[in-house]
């Protein structure tokens, strides 16, 4: 890679061992992908749940954090994805003191590194959305696909070590979706059904993600009617990224880089059609039971509007099985202030903050609580939780709330 004078100085250790290690890591990744140089980034977003980190990852962070003050802090605003717990609700979840200890050590290390503990995967709704052509280094696949596609920003999937490295150096290797040519469509999808509910938007995204199937493929879509909102596109993108490892899509006439099809696509792309039947088939494929042990709204964290809708559905109900609603630390105080939390919790639900269900030792909390049959309106989560021993089922928010009250999914 071509390095600037400053980058050569970082590599030589003139700014200390922490940025030196970070840049060397980035050079290894950039060289693998043939990056010619680095591109400055303005924000970084770190995914670092402790189930993924393990003791080894936490020790690695603590070693960085032990460097001399003045040589260890991030250079740009660097924020965090959801943590692996809501400390106030850890006992309810059945998490152990060992899990919480790892969490606290991780937080302490990040704070020493200058990382801002936002603990959110909806930073584009709650912290600061990136702007068109803004180069960023984001973790969490749902954050990346939304930022690339809806905002027109430029990011690859940056796993925790690389996102932290970008925060520490203020740059990232210029490859993948930082390059204009990589952002052009590689396949065309004609969408013949415009969803209404969030679970359907997720199911549509998941269906298209299965078609895309590869990080380097970029779908361009036509046929969606009207103008979907932020929450709809949040579920659509998060599911597409989860099912397809997809980082960027274009919606002709809706997303910023695709005013016209010709802006992003050449003629003759491989063409696919997605119908209502396909979307329903994905949802039906997860209907393994009519009984549920737990209802979860998470992945992505709920916006204020989603919590408002959920609170409305919970009014006057009494739940027979646990209902968990997970949101960000930015949204939770508003939900408390506006009475949404009370409406949900008066019905027997629980509102959690700053975590994500599947990043919170999902396997262990299932065993601790006897949770196996799980209902959710998140297509992303049904895709993930099968690997954790759950039998996840996808349904509308309304049907999930009804299931929490009756223990049965209609």
């Amino acid at each position, binding site marked *: 890679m071509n390095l600037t004078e400053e980058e050569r100085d970082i590599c030589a250790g003139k700014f200390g061992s922490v940025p030196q290690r970070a840049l060397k890591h980035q050079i290894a990744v950039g060289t693998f992908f043939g990056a010619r140089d680095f591109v400055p980034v303005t924000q970084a977003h770190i995914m670092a*749940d402790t189930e*993924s980190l393990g003791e080894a990852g936490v020790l690695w962070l603590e070693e960085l954090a032990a460097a001399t003050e003045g040589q260890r802090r991030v250079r740009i605003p660097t924020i965090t994805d959801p943590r692996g717990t809501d400390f106030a609700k850890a006992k309810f979840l059945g998490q152990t003191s060992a899990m919480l200890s790892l969490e606290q050590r991780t937080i302490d290390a990040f704070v020493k590194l200058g990382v801002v503990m936002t603990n959110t995967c909806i930073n584009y709704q709650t912290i600061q959305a990136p702007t068109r052509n803004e180069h960023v280094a984001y973790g969490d696949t749902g954050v990346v696909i939304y930022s690339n596609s809806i905002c027109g920003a430029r990011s690859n999937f940056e796993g925790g070590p690389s996102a932290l490295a970008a925060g520490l150096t203020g740059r990232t290797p210029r490859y993948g979706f930082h390059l204009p040519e990589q952002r052009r469509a590689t396949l065309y999808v004609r969408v013949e059904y415009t969803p209404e509910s969030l679970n359907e938007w997720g199911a549509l995204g998941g269906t298209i993600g299965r078609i895309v199937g590869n990080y380097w493929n970029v779908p361009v879509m036509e046929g969606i009617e009207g103008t979907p909102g932020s929450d709809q596109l949040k579920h659509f993108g998060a599911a597409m990224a989860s099912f397809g*490892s997809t980082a960027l899509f274009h919606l002709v006439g809706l997303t910023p880089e695709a005013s016209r099809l010709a802006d992003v696509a050449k003629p003759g792309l491989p063409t696919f059609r997605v119908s209502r039947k396909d979307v329903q088939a994905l949802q039906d494929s997860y209907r393994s039971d009519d009984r549920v042990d737990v209802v979860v709204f998470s992945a992505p964290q709920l916006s204020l509007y989603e919590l408002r809708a959920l609170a409305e559905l919970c009014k006057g109900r009494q739940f027979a099985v646990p209902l968990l609603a997970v949101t960000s630390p930015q949204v939770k105080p508003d939900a408390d202030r506006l009475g949404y939390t009370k409406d949900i919790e008066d019905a027997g639900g629980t509102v959690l903050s700053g975590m994500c269900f599947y990043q919170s030792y999902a396997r262990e909390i299932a065993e601790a609580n006897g949770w196996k049959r799980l209902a959710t309106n998140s297509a992303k989560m049904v895709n993930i939780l099968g*690997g954790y021993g759950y039998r996840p089922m996808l349904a509308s928010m309304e049907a999930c709330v009804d299931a929490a009250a009756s223990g049965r999914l209609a």
Partner: protein
Amino acid sequence: MNKLKFIARHAMGRTVRGTALVAHDGFSARYDLDRIAGIFSRPTHKLVGESYLNKILVLDTAKGGVASAWMLHEMKSRGAVPLALVFNSVNPILVQGAALADLPMLAGFDEDITKAIPFGAKVEVNPEMGILEVIR
């Protein structure tokens, strides 16, 4: 089998030799593995039940979310890790994870590498030369 050497467009790490565990399937450290037992655990994975410890994985593509970037490092700390990773195509997450865990990796071949390498073949991964070679 005529061809014994395969050129990779992307390469990282040191040269290693070992037994190839081959399947036309994806790879996610979070969703596909029992990382304590060291086996593929997702019921629908083509390698379910197979131990990946000290094997050279030859798979189609990287799947899943960003967790693998940390998980390879955690697996390496326990010595419960594949010897090397070989993919037809790879997303940035596994490359970032392999860089942190110091795992050799090759990706990007002219042929479907999962069809070219026999299951159980002895192979050499040579990232410096960008070559995957069947040695027996």
